[in-house]
């Protein structure tokens, strides 16, 4: 079910090749290659996998994702605006943050929020 999540990530996938090298440093590189489920409570689900040269999007996955970010539509709107990061919702206690997924989610939070705010700056 396409929605704001898919629409925004399609736009991000378009600009990903231009920014991935700048944004994903060696420290953030463990973000690469992991299947991550992004889901809106009661709404759409999107699977993403960040690679060096592309951001792969799909609406289904044949195996369990390595990390899951699930939150309400209101929180996703806030996150997709770049105003707050995924970790902001986590600190508010409205997003799970399992210990074995933290290295992926924390890096996704930095990179996603960075990309979203860079996108809104006029060239």
């Amino acid at each position: 079910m396409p929605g704001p999540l898919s629409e925004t990530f399609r736009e991000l996938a378009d600009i990903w090749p231009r920014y991935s090298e700048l944004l994903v440093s060696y420290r953030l590189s463990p973000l690469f290659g992991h299947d991550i489920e992004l889901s809106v409570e009661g709404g759409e689900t999107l699977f993403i996998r960040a690679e060096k040269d592309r951001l792969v999007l799909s609406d289904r996955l044949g195996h369990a994702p390595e990390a899951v970010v699930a939150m309400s539509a209101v929180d996703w709107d806030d996150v997709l605006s770049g105003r707050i990061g995924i970790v902001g919702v986590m600190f508010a206690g409205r997003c799970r943050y399992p210990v074995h997924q933290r290295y992926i989610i924390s890096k996704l939070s930095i990179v996603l929020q960075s990309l979203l705010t860079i996108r809104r700056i006029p060239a």
Partner: protein
Amino acid sequence: MKHTENLCNWACGLRYEDIPEDVIDKAKEQLYSIIGASVLGARSQAGRAAIAGLRAMDEGSACAIFGSNERASVANAAMANSFLAQIFEFEDWAVYSHSGACVVPVAMGMSEKLNKTGRDLLVALVIGNEIAGRTGLAIQRGAHVGNSMPNHQADAAIVASRLLGAGPREMAGAVGLSCFMAMQPAPVGYLTDAKGLINAFPLHAGITGALLSRAGVTGNRDVLEHPAGYLASVSEYLDLNELAEGLGDRWVLRTLRSKLYPICGYHISPIHAALQIRREHNLSADDIESVDCYAAGVTLYAGSRFHTLEPDLFTRIEQGDATHVPLLFDVPFPMAAAFVAGELTPRQYGMDYIRSPQVRDLAGRIRLHVDAEMHAAYYRWEYAARVVVKTRDGRSLSAEVSQMPGAPGHEFNVRAKFEQALCSIAPEDRVRRAGDLIGDLENQATVTDLLTALRPDAEMLCAATAEGAGLDATAES
């Protein structure tokens, strides 16, 4: 490679004469900065409560607690001093690791307890930083960044063991004992004073591990590199080669960054740029229409992470469910307070500022953005920021900081930070003497004179404590 053994062999064998003069100078800089931060921390309500809590069942009197006339056993005094250094986020880091608030309290406490020389203390400080920096690099790709890096159970044990006079085998065992219960922070603790314990609990384990190993308790001597060891327990990715890289040659302590402002290190450049604009244009907060801040992604990551709490952070502080601590990681609030006050000191985290409509209104008009180039530069150790102020009369004023004050090559007068912290609790001549003793530490037969000079004047302390009641934000409940 047997990394634990290798590091312990090096740490046991290092002599004062092996350390370059500029590295020794960095160790002294760290002492000025951390003791200064601890003294300020002791004036906070949280700091005073922590001292009282740690003293409650501690009959010991071996070691001084900075900024107070209290004493405690070595482990509890070090724990208190670490908490005090952290409670205003006014400490330092080397490479990625916030080393000073762990290494200094352990080295000072053990040196006082064991009547060590100034040189012994300096060598222990250098060793602690070299270990902390390298273990931090080894786990740089894990989940934790900045102050959260869970590596200090290793450096604390090695510093304590070195000052105990341990050999490599005993020291490696101390690391094994210290690191057994591998600690990681629960992120939610950043909402309260709990975050002040971020180095304190690990260093307590380090001192305990050193003492147990000395007494004959056996610990794992391969705990750093073992696939089921400490570093593998706290990080999903390991770069173990970093543990040995350049040991005794490429000095981590040369990367020391002391903090000019009490705030998360990611935000020092934005604050510096904001204060520069205010100073250069004689700007008042009321002149400001809006502020746009451009920096690395980590600035936004940390600086916006408490912006969606329900109830909001200010309400939580009023309710006693949060303290000033999360504001130390924010950008809009401290920047607004700095625009209003013309400074950013612990005072700006007091309730007067937290409740100020002027500060909160301006904070609501500060927006954060990531600059892609600045983001990439951050990972090359360049902490840049650009702040653009739109004034109500239509001007656009901007300032760009290419590197944070306190970075190598951009040092500020850290001794002044130390003296400013102490001057409210000790007479000027004593403050100057304490500063001189740190500057001449390699020639001190013991650290006793320094600790005597650091002792607060009882009357001045009493007055400063009364005045400092608003130094942090613990709402009265």
